[in-house]
């Protein structure tokens, strides 16, 4: 038996509480005494029939006002599955509760009224579900009895909704016509709507994917507490946010960036060799490294972005509106840091999805903002990782949780621009670097075909990745297979090839890469100089991979020299087309003297030195 968490959205007028009550009732999840209480409460409210909505409305004010105020959690099970329902209010003033209830849901059931068609609030619910990254949605078109169980109004709503849902990022949307009051298509298939071919709501819930949000790739382990029963044992307790970990595996500790290996893993049910996302574990490591609450264990080759300025959607949840430049406390995984909202790019009208400039955000309003933190956070985008991509803001005076944040990424010059427009083709303006950030570099390896550019770059990349430099390799041959497929080897086409490569490198840097290794023959000096002109002076590093034509011809890894010699490849550099050696390369690696490994080691050391020198 597995567990599905789902949330519900819709207002009392749509019959959401009734739908949940019906779901519980028809799955025999309401007990006799509970039902008796509901019958009695219905009677005392002067209602003719048993109001199943009363099953979920718990607080006195909710019963008095006949509305749902707060998130209520309900539990039921069928033979297949155990369910947790976060029943969230749909009124506009309670958006914050919907966000709360939906934050961990695998699926959302959006309830709407068939007689009223697609309303603003249904769009709002769908948008919020999309923003919160809920992977699956069921649109329950309720009160089908009031439209005569007819297919036409249902189809109209579904078509209209599908057009809207296209703008969203929810991957999996199902629709079901229901009548919650009577029980059509809730647990059993209704006989009143033979035109509907799908399963009832419960069937959709039982077959939806549980744990669809889990990121199984990127290992992230925020340390919750240090467990130290005595001098001989030091364990780090926490819940694996994503990915998997095994004993013996190399891990890196953030923020110290020190690496070590996993010695042991203990889960609630005992020692284990491996554990995956969601497990609460205690790990020990092989080295004596200082690790404390708020630190994170990751894999050296796959580290989150270290950012002191994040670009995020904020959902404001407090009566006191957002104050730009006020100090809040930010809670991200197990880290707590001081933070400030420095720039509110725009507010999103949740009804139209339009963006509009705003000076602040009030309760239940959503906007996109830059949040600057006193110490770096180790972030992933919320889309990829619900744990390392989310945070809340806490007001230090009232201690209230005032905002929920969904991270898009590190705040960059482009993403914080008021209009959110890309920076265009101007020379790359790197945003001011937080103190912890090292300089970035485009490392341009130029040289003849067969000189060893790609081999050296790959080896250097592996070394850099192991040190958590986010290193991208742009290889000339690979670009020519796709992006530059339309280009030949004329001087013009070569120039265009190099230009495109430089632009791609620029984008990688703009969006968070530390080092972009580019391996292009790039035979013409003026093309390489053009690339240099696109970057700030210290950012572009030209590396000449030197080898004479005889050596390259002897290596001929791709058989190209043989073809060129046979006349099959016109404009082949070094044979039928010139190669202009660099005059001011930052580093020259002669591969007739150095092995590829040795050249990579020299390049790696050179880059380390260059990059570290430039930090201060």
């Amino acid at each position, binding site marked *: 038996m*597995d567990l599905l968490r789902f949330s519900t959205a819709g207002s009392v007028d749509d019959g959401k509480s009734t739908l949940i009550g019906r779901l519980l009732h028809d799955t025999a999840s309401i*007990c006799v005494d509970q039902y008796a209480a509901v019958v009695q409460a219905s009677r005392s409210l002067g209602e003719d029939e048993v109001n199943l909505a009363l099953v979920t409305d718990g607080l006195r004010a909710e019963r008095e006002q006949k509305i749902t*105020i707060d998130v209520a*959690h309900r539990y039921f099970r069928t033979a297949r599955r155990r369910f947790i329902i976060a029943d969230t209010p749909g009124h506009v003033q309670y958006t914050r509760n919907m966000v709360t209830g939906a934050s961990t849901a695998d699926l959302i059931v959006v309830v709407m009224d068939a007689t009223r068609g697609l309303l603003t609030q249904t769009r709002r619910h769908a948008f919020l579900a999309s923003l919160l990254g809920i992977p699956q949605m069921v649109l329950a078109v309720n009160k089908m009895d009031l439209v005569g169980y007819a297919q036409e109004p249902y189809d109209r709503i579904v078509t209209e909704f599908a057009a809207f849902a296209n703008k969203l990022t929810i991957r999996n949307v199902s629709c079901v016509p229901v009548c919650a009051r009577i029980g059509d298509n809730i647990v059993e298939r209704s006989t009143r709507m033979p035109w509907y071919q799908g399963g009832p709501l419960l069937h959709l819930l039982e077959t939806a994917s549980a744990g669809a949000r889990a990121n199984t790739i990127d290992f992230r382990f925020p340390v919750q507490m240090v467990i130290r*029963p005595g001098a001989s044992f030091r364990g780090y307790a926490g819940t694996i946010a994503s990915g998997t970990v095994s004993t013996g595996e190399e891990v890196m500790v953030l923020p110290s960036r020190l690496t070590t290996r996993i010695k042991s893993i203990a889960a*609630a049910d005992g020692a284990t060799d491996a554990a995956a996302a969601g497990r609460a574990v205690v790990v020990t490591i092989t080295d004596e490294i200082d690790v404390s609450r708020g630190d994170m264990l990751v894999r050296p080759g796959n580290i989150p972005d270290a950012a002191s300025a994040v670009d995020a959607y904020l959902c404001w949840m407090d009566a006191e509106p957002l104050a730009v430049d006020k100090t809040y406390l930010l809670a991200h995984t197990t880290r707590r840091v001081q933070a400030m909202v420095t720039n509110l790019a725009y507010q999103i009208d949740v009804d139209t999805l339009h963006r509009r400039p705003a000076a602040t955000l009030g309760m239940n309003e959503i906007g996109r903002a830059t949040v600057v933190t006193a110490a770096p956070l180790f972030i992933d985008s919320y889309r990829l990782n619900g744990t390392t991509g989310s945070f809340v803001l806490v007001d230090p005076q009232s*201690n209230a949780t005032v905002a929920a944040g969904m991270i898009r990424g590190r705040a960059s010059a482009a993403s914080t621009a008021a209009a959110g427009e890309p920076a265009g083709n101007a020379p790359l303006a790197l945003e001011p670097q937080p103190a912890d950030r090292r300089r970035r570099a485009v490392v341009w390896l130029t040289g003849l075909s067969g000189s060893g550019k790609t081999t050296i770059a790959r080896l250097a990349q592996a070394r850099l990745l192991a040190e958590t430099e986010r290193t991208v390799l742009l290889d000339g041959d690979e670009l020519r297979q796709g992006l530059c497929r339309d280009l030949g080897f004329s001087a013009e086409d070569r120039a265009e090839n190099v230009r495109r490569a430089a632009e791609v490198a620029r984008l990688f840097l703009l969006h968070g890469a530390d080092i972009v290794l580019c391996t292009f023959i790039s035979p013409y000096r003026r093309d390489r100089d053009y690339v240099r002109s696109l970057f700030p002076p210290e950012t572009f590093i030209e590396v000449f991979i030197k080898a004479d034509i005889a050596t390259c011809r002897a290596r001929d890894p791709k058989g190209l020299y043989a073809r060129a010699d046979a006349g099959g490849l016109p404009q082949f550099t070094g044979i039928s087309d010139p190669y202009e050696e660099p005059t001011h390369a930052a580093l020259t690696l002669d591969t007739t003297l150095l092995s590829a490994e040795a050249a990579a080691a020299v390049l790696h050391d050179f880059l380390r030195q260059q990059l570290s020198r430039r930090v201060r």
Partner: protein
Amino acid sequence: MSKNGASGRERVNTVTDVHIVSREADASSVSGEECVNVADVLHTHLRVLEDEAIHIIREALAQFERAAILFSGGKDSVVLAWLARKAVSPAKLTVPLLHIDTGHNFPETLRFRDAFARELNVPLLVRLVQDTIDRGRAADETGVRATRNALQTVTLLDAIQELRLDAALGGARRDEEKARAKERIFSHRNAFGEWEPKQQRPELWGLYNGRKNAGEHFRVFPLSNWTELDVWQYVAREHIQLPELYFAHDREVFERDGMLLAVSDHVRLDTDERPVRRRVRFRTIGDATCTGALCSDAATTHQVVAEIAAARVTERGGRADDRRSETSMEDRKRQGYF
């Protein structure tokens, strides 16, 4: 098959104590053993709930300086203490168990409470409602239906103040009652110990906000998302010992308001109430004055699991304290009840 089951149990039980013998040791049925093993494989939801609870407990222990576990000897608080010990393992659990003793408890519960604390090797703090009454801070209800249920709140809040607790971990579950269904996992209490349902902080993802001012405290509910059946399935999986009141036994009971109450020194029988001997067990073990028994032959954990899976009455249906009004739990919680 049975050999595997036995070694599995041994492994789990070594952590506690050999004196605490699982209920299953008495059960002769082999099918019960097999049932455990199959259930362990199929019940991934228990693993999810267990991991979530441990995450919450660790978060509480990391965020608060002076926490205590509210412990009644009932199954939920036993499971909570069990999970708390796992959360800090292999370190020792140093967080004390705090029992608010109404003086109306079943003697079996108190005996179990003391044995459990001793075997877990954790400090047990007991605060008595009688002391609160003697100090004039509360007065007993009068009449035949008098209970000390509401009075516990005063003793509890006094204890929190006296011990300068900043967090009290409780075994309350959201499925128990409709006001609890709306309560946060980290639930703030103001300086008067009151719960303010309309001021609750949004609680998102696994992020729990335990910030507070001096004099305020938090109640933390790691079992929020568990149901009664989950608790019992977990008790079965982990071979956790519980007070014998939870299992079928013969007892003098009498009927009142459709409930079977135990005959004890703490209840006065009305003139028309006649004691009878029945085979019963208790689903909850609160005060003898307000906890109803049910007729049952479920004598082992697995028989209880089966009985609860088929039950059509809620757990608290047998609690007179919840029957007083539609919103009696909400009202008590607002004032600082568990």
